[in-house]
């Protein structure tokens, strides 16, 4: 089986700041790397490769030339081939447009490598955070999709069985392949790259496909092909200063706290 694992290059989202003049998020100069949620997807692809003989894993990323580094990071862990979908026309794509680019890329991987059985994503990106890309790509391809996968108990060339974590419990579903999945952190413990893997990844070829190679015209990608605009970014208003609960003993403090909670009708 051929597996495609999709990875995004993102800034470390916990240290972003807003430009006070433009209100835009300043990501230049921030450390960038593979979206942490995607590490679980890469790991799961590699584990499926170990489980199913003859499996090959292709890493796919959409973005500028810098994305080469996250593709190589996945190659260093044991993925077989890398593809970068890159074109100036892709910039500014929302999930609607991005899912089309990804779907075309996946189809081209299928054409050039003799089919694709599974596409894996992380739960969400750490910058956009929508968690919407997986199902959108499923719909673009006309393939079944399941998000929030915590376990893949059975995987074979024709079908997979997955456990989906819901808010009220766990669904077990069987999907006819090809299919698209997003996986949770719970699914595995990602491995670290070996020095040898890192060295080998440096020399591996990474193909780059642009809009023309994917048969995409400029009006269906980027801002033109998107249906959503970000109109404003603002810092989160800070919470007002709180109250320090004082007291001599734990019992005193407990009493003071419970009085406050009672006042607020929590009790």
């Amino acid at each position, binding site marked *: 089986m051929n597996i495609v694992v999709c990875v995004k290059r993102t800034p470390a989202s916990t240290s972003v700041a807003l430009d006070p003049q433009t209100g835009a*998020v300043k990501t230049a100069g921030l450390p960038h790397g593979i979206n942490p949620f995607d590490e679980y997807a890469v790991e799961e692809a590699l584990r499926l490769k170990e489980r199913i003989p003859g499996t090959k894993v292709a890493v796919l990323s959409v973005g500028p030339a810098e994305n080469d580094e996250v593709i190589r990071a996945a190659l260093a862990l044991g993925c077989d081939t890398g593809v970068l979908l890159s074109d100036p026309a892709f910039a500014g794509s929302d999930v609607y447009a991005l899912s089309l680019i990804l779907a075309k890329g996946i189809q081209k991987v299928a054409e050039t490598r003799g089919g694709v059985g599974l596409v894996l994503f992380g739960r969400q990106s750490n910058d956009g955070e929508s968690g919407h890309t997986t199902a959108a790509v499923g719909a673009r391809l006309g393939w079944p999709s399941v998000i929030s996968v915590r376990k893949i108990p059975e995987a074979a060339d024709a079908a997979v069985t997955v456990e989906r974590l819901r*808010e009220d419990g766990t669904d077990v579903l069987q999907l006819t392949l090809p299919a698209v999945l997003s996986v949770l952190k719970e699914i595995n413990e990602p491995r670290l790259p070996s020095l040898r893997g890192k060295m080998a990844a440096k020399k591996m070829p990474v193909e780059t496909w642009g809009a023309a190679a994917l048969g995409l015209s400029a009006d269906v990608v980027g801002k033109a092909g998107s*249906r959503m605009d970000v109109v404003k970014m603002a810092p989160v208003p800070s919470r007002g200063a709180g109250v320090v609960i004082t007291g001599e003993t734990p019992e005193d403090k407990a009493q003071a706290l419970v009085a406050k909670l009672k006042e607020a009708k929590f009790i």
Partner: protein
Amino acid sequence: MAYEGKGVWCIAESRGGKVSPVLFELLTAGRKLAAARGETVTAVVIGHGLQDAAGEIAGRGADQVLVVEDASLKEFVDDVYAAVLAKLAEARKPRTLLLPATVYGRSLAPRLSVLLRAGLAADAVGLELDAEQRLLVTRSAYAGNVVATVLLRSVDGPEIATVRPLAFERSAAGGAGTVAAAAPDAGALAGKTAFVSFGADRADEIDLGAAEKIVSGGRGLGKPEGFELVRKLAKTLGAAVGASRAAVDSGWIPYKHQVGLTGRSVRPKLYVACGISGQIQHMAGMNASGTIVAINSDAECPMMKVATYAVQGDLYKLLPAIVAEIEKARG
């Protein structure tokens, strides 16, 4: 071709004939938009055995309840549900579709967006209209550091948003909506996903995402038994149990309890953090909580700094004292 949509659809999530109460939050959000545009609000319930639920919804803020039933729709299966809803929307042309930002909504909304050529926004905590009555969605981004406002501008399709649970009040009883059946498109019922089984969480556990009160424990508990204290306080308050990643990674409690960037996003009215330092990845999941209580031995840690009520001390002494005090207060 320009799309002429009308009305707001609120898509219900249900299991076993029971509708998730997030629908009533969607109805509140949808009502405001519909009123501003002079349109109606429709609740769409899809599944099997939903007649009783439909009656309740009609008396709780929906102008109309559309019931889409079929024995084969008993369980939620992504590709089939999306195809059925898309066929229905193509025929009836709503302007706006709201879904809960749960696993269900995040699975369906993107598929609907592609099938209906709709603009799509995630995780709305606020919904407004711009001067042209297009949907403006507010949401948090970048690990809760940024509030983003996005505009949906599809001209050849509707607009779709997933709405974060507990971001809106639940609609009150009142009004008398109509209930109508809508037969699912037969062609849409064949999918490539088969439902195998469902394993419910323990019935006495409150789901974090829908919880109005949460008590969470972190590394400061020191050992797995610490969660017995956390559970005790949670039970006394009628709260759900949460955890930091450090506690989950230590194997003290299952992952589904994790709050934060790589866990659940929660918005309770009350969040009690016991032995949690308040690193930004944890805060990302809970900084929209109403009242925050921090219980921590370190008065200088970030959680104590953001807390509405900061209680310094050893949680092993404080938690039992707080439980006893609540019991006393209740008499």
